[in-house]
């Protein structure tokens, strides 16, 4: 079966989706966080009546507007891709994915487009309080519209609240709240939005540091830093807490991703966390049962991985090989068994469709299986694994080893994200301390570090998505649909052409954004009474 998959098509489709999603994510987190930062600044202006805070608010609002405008609608491309390149996937999940995306579209359009207009056009035309309310509603609206896409993404990582309809080949929503309030959705929303808050805080801190280094607008820059570093520090703490919940969630629902994140081949009790590590030579591709852990260098924190995953220092954390080959002692079902069960579910679906076509009485019996909770939990739950079935047990085991995500990429993306997350927290704390001691201007190292942390925060932000999306391969919907089965059977050259078209368009947009932003930053805030 696996030989029939056009890897060129799958890889180009994945590359195109990754490209558009990653470009989209360059613009989104700044909008999510900067919206709140300017809302805080404007609140101080309204409370104190000090026009300097209005000037501060208007400057950052201008940068918010540029970023918002360049980024707006870049996510629409992803929806185009669903229908064209991922038609099997779109059909299979349509009812569940469609509803959150529709709500997102309506909410984003009405809330953001209405209140953002008041934000930019409303100075001196509406009351201070109404303007402030609009600024807050823009920030809240942007974050609320992110809820829906994150709920949809969380469902793909932990599908629930739905029932598969074998007549339509679609998953149908049976419990909205089960999907909306799933632990994966809640942690994903908190972790993603707080990462946006941290990114925006670093952006404001970095730009403000540049002003101080240039000995321009010192008071303006320090005030901006007080707001953003305080917000950033609190958001960093929330980010670490939500990341911790997310790791526990992952250890339970996506143990293979969790093992790949730490390059853990053999399961362990009292498993240590690799704080810093350099992976050795790549293992054979695909791996087999001889694969083993290979680090050139590593610094470990004893028991930490067990604690992180299960809140117990002596808990057993399954490794990649435990998951593939199974581990009876710890009650871990092998991938080989899951493949067999998934194949059975797939064959039941094929038999049902055949029985319908032939108007056989078996159709009723087969249809009933999809309604039987016990059967669904025993077989259908592993539906996607069936794609790796082979009647030859040796080949089946080989196929099971093909279900491991790219380990090095997942490992490094995770560690880059975590290490940089720690750096951001320290930087915010350091800046607040130096501001408190009134000694920031003299500390060139901290100021330059702040400036150069701007690109680092974008790297950390993208790395987070790499962990989430690369780490869950080969799944597009965990346990139900593999990436190779989700793609449309179209000509791979057409996907290649659109890949380069997107690459060109989005690069042009990014260059435009950077040019306009840097120009406006260099101009700086207008003097009192000047037009923004």
């Amino acid at each position, binding site marked *: *079966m696996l030989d*029939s998959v056009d890897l060129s098509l799958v890889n180009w489709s994945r590359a195109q989706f990754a490209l558009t999603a990653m470009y989209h994510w360059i613009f989104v987190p700044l909008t999510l966080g900067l919206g709140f930062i300017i809302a805080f600044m404007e609140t101080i202006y309204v409370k104190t009546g000090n026009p300097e805070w209005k000037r501060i608010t208007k400057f950052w609002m*201008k940068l918010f*507007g*540029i970023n918002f*405008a*360049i980024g*707006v*609608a*870049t996510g*629409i*491309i992803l929806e*185009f*891709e669903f*229908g*064209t390149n991922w*038609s*099997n996937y*779109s*059909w*299979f999940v349509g009812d569940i994915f469609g509803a959150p995306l529709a709500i997102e579209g309506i909410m984003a359009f009405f809330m953001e487009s209405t209140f953002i*207009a008041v934000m*930019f*056009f*409303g100075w001196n*035309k509406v009351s201070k309080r109404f303007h402030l309310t609009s600024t807050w509603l823009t920030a809240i609206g942007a974050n609320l519209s992110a809820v829906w896409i994150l709920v949809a993404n969380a469902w793909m990582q932990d599908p629930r609240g739905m029932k598969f309809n074998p*007549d*339509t*080949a*679609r998953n149908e929503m049976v419990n909205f709240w089960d999907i909306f309030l799933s632990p994966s959705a809640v942690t994903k929303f908190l972790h993603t939005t707080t990462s946006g808050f941290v990114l925006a805080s670093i952006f404001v801190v970095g730009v403000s540091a540049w002003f101080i280094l240039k000995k321009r607008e010192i008071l303006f820059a320090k005030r901006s830093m007080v707001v953003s570093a305080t917000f950033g520090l609190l958001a960093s703490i929330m980010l670490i807490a939500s990341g911790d919940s997310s790791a526990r969630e992952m250890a339970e629902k996506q143990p293979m991703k969790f093992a790949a994140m730490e390059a853990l081949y053999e399961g362990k009790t009292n498993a240590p966390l690799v704080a810093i590590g350099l992976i050795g030579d790549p293992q054979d591709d695909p791996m087999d049962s001889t694969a083993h852990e290979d680090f050139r260098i590593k610094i470990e924190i004893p028991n930490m991985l067990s604690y992180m995953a299960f809140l117990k220092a002596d808990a057993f954390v399954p490794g990649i090989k435990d998951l593939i080959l199974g581990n009876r002692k710890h009650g871990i079902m092998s991938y080989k068994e899951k493949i067999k069960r998934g194949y059975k579910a*797939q*064959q039941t*679906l*094929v038999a049902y*469709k055949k029985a319908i076509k032939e108007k056989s009485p078996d159709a009723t019996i087969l249809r009933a299986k999809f309604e039987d909770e016990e059967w669904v939990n025993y077989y259908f739950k592993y539906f996607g694994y*069936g*794609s790796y*079935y082979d009647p030859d047990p040796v080949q089946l085991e080989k196929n099971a080893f093909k279900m491991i995500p790219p380990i090095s990429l997942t490992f490094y993306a995770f560690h880059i994200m975590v290490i940089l997350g720690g750096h951001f927290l320290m930087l915010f704390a350091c800046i607040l301390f130096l501001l408190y001691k009134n000694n920031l201007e003299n500390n060139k190292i901290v100021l330059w570090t702040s400036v150069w942390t701007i690109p680092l925060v974008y790297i950390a932000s993208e790395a987070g998505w790499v962990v989430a999306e690369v780490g869950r391969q080969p799944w597009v919907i965990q346990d139900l*649909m593999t990436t190779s*089965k989700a793609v*449309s*059977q*179209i000509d791979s050259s*057409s996907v290649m*052409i*659109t890949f380069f*078209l997107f690459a060109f*368009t989005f690069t042009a*947009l990014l260059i*435009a954004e950077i040019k*306009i932003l840097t*120009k*406006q930053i260099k101009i700086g805030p207008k003097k009192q009474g000047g*037009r*923004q």
Partner: protein
Amino acid sequence: MLIRSTFSELLVFIGFRNTKKDMKKIVDFYVDGFRNLPDWARSVWFIILLKLFIMFVIFKLFFFQNKLKKDFNNDEDRANHVIENITTP
């Protein structure tokens, strides 16, 4: 007609007493805002419009047709096609 009267009632409900006058105020608010756009905002609006044109006219029309809608006439055929794809040994 029904939509128009419902919309008017909604405006009254959320605080607009004189619908025509208030609507004019809203339109003037936007017109005035767009007339007084600073240079950076004009550049940004140009980029937005160009981007939307590229996305919805060029990409959507020429490159991104819905495959299942294009290739099949009804949902039954679409479902059978997807089932075949996801279960083919």
